[in-house]
């Protein structure tokens, strides 16, 4: 009797339909044309899941629930409307933290009132043993997602330094804490006392914090993807507790989505997932990577030079990076692209998978600036074209263009796939100053090449000046 929450097979069936809608939502994202229809499927699935729950449970407090949904929905809607596209990574991190916290609250609520969730063993008056494991996992993953996402948010939002913060003996502390959490969940199986449950929760909050603090800014694409994955596993664990197919399917989808994105990001940096999670990248690297190269000659160009070179070109490939996002240069960049197209120049955009602070970050910014998506190419699709390109225009990217990744075995970024900008006839490199090196702390040989012209200025200002010079 206490076994199943959804007794009626029709109810289970509707939850299954909701799950299918969520699958279709992700399926839609295989191309921009079908993507909006996919998003609608997602909404339908959510309405089905929420509606079914409300209809099939004796609702003792409907007004309160409606008020709660209105408050949350209102906040969410306003934030979604107002947020700047450059701030998407922060927003996604913030949203992840909410999923994590909601999972924690639901798990505590289930602990406080197991009867309502159908997880109470009526014979013993205790929570079912299987449910204890599911709850323990749910609350642990939820808490890690919450505190980890809060740190990721603070780092991405600039409230906290993007530099890795390294505690002494952090690996020992982290592994110890994780082992303790696992042991406590095991112990929870034999004793469902409140202190055990509370300890699991508290330690999980702590480990989420400890795990993300040592990870630096440019590794954030991996972190954001990983937290995305965790929020899914948290939902799946709660789905197990409630025997709810919609939650299990969603959890599995989101969990694998985040895991695959993390994998893609790691591969794009040629780093193992473990080394990213261990953190501290870019702190020891400075010494090994060409520190003696400071006095090499380089050429400086002006906006007029750049405008002239590009107008003469047959094809220009623009390589945007995080610096473009920081400078909000995407709109000016599109204007420049339009002027070039008017001159009969072919304009393409090349995106490195880890450009920016989250997967696909650059694509969204370019889309925002009305750059048609069929002019935007991924690394594998465009890398062969640099050799036949007159001008490569690098704006706000650095490490992802560094040829040392192909040749220099001692370089910390050796083996990472890079964009072959140096093969273009001319490389225009927009950079704030010669002093700063990329995130990996490595000098970029492209700066000193004969075919490179450095455009030293704020990215947005430089592009605006080029646009003026073209007009």
């Amino acid at each position, binding site marked *: 009797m206490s076994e199943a929450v959804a007794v009626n097979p029709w109810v289970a069936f509707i939850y299954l339909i909701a799950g299918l809608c969520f699958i279709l939502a992700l399926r839609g994202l295989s191309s921009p044309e079908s993507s909006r229809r996919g998003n609608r499927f997602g909404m339908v699935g959510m309405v089905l899941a929420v509606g079914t729950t409300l209809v099939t449970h004796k609702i003792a407090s409907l007004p309160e629930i409606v008020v709660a949904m209105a408050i949350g929905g209102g906040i969410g809607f306003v934030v979604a409307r107002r947020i700047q596209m450059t701030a998407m990574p922060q927003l996604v991190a913030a949203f992840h933290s909410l999923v994590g916290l909601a999972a924690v609250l639901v798990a505590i609520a289930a602990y406080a009132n197991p009867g309502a*969730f159908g997880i109470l063993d009526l014979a013993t008056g205790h929570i079912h043993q299987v449910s204890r494991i599911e709850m323990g996992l749910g609350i642990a993953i939820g808490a890690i997602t919450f505190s980890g996402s809060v740190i990721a948010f603070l780092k991405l939002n600039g409230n906290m330094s993007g530099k890795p913060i390294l505690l002494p003996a952090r690996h020992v502390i982290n592994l110890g804490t994780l082992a303790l959490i696992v042991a406590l969940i095991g112990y929870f199986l034999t004793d469902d006392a409140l202190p055990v449950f509370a300890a699991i929760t508290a330690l999980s909050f702590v480990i989420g914090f400890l795990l993300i603090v040592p990870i630096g800014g440019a590794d954030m694409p991996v972190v954001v993807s990983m937290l995305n994955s965790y929020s899914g596993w948290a939902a799946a664990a709660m789905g197990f507790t409630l*025997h709810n197919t919609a939650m299990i399917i969603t959890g599995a989808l989101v969990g694998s989505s985040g895991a695959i994105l993390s994998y893609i990001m790691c591969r794009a940096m040629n780093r193992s997932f473990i080394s990213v999670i261990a953190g501290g990248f870019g702190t020891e690297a400075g010494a090994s990577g060409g520190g003696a190269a400071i006095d090499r000659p380089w050429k400086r160009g002006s906006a007029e030079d750049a405008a002239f070179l590009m107008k003469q070109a047959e094809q220009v490939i623009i390589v945007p990076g995080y610096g473009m996002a920081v400078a909000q240069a995407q709109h000016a960049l599109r204007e420049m692209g339009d002027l070039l197209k008017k001159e009969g120049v072919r304009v393409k955009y090349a995106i490195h998978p880890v450009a920016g602070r989250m997967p696909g970050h650059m694509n969204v910014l370019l889309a925002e600036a009305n750059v048609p998506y069929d002019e935007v190419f991924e690394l594998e699709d465009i890398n062969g074209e640099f050799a036949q390109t007159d001008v490569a225009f690098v704006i706000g990217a650095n490490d992802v263009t560094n040829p040392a990744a192909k040749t220099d075995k001692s370089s910390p970024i050796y083996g990472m796939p890079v964009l072959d900008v140096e093969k273009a006839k001319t490389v225009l490199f927009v950079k704030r100053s010669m002093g700063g090196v990329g995130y990996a702390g490595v000098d970029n040989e492209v700066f000193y090449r004969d075919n490179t012209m450095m455009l030293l200025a704020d990215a947005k200002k430089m592009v605006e000046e080029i646009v003026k010079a073209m007009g």
Partner: protein
Amino acid sequence: MDFVSVLSIFMLACCVGYYVVWSVTPALHTPLMSVTNAISSVIIVGALIASAAEGSTTSKWLGLAAVVLASVNIFGGFAVTERMLAMYKKKDRPAAK
């Protein structure tokens, strides 16, 4: 449902997720994250059960708090995804000669 059938649904959904996510074009990875974010808020189902149930005031208020959080995500997540997807446009063919 017994544990094994729940587990089978989970395993199969992981397989589906694996194939579906690999077919997502890299250009849409940011919307992918925001939409997965929105749908993972299906955890609201648990929050609703907690806030609807009688018997424990603690449980009810925790549930309501979770409903607020999950609603932020559901409405915010779908709305921001919709906003992003509306920006992805193809080249207007007539303009190019």
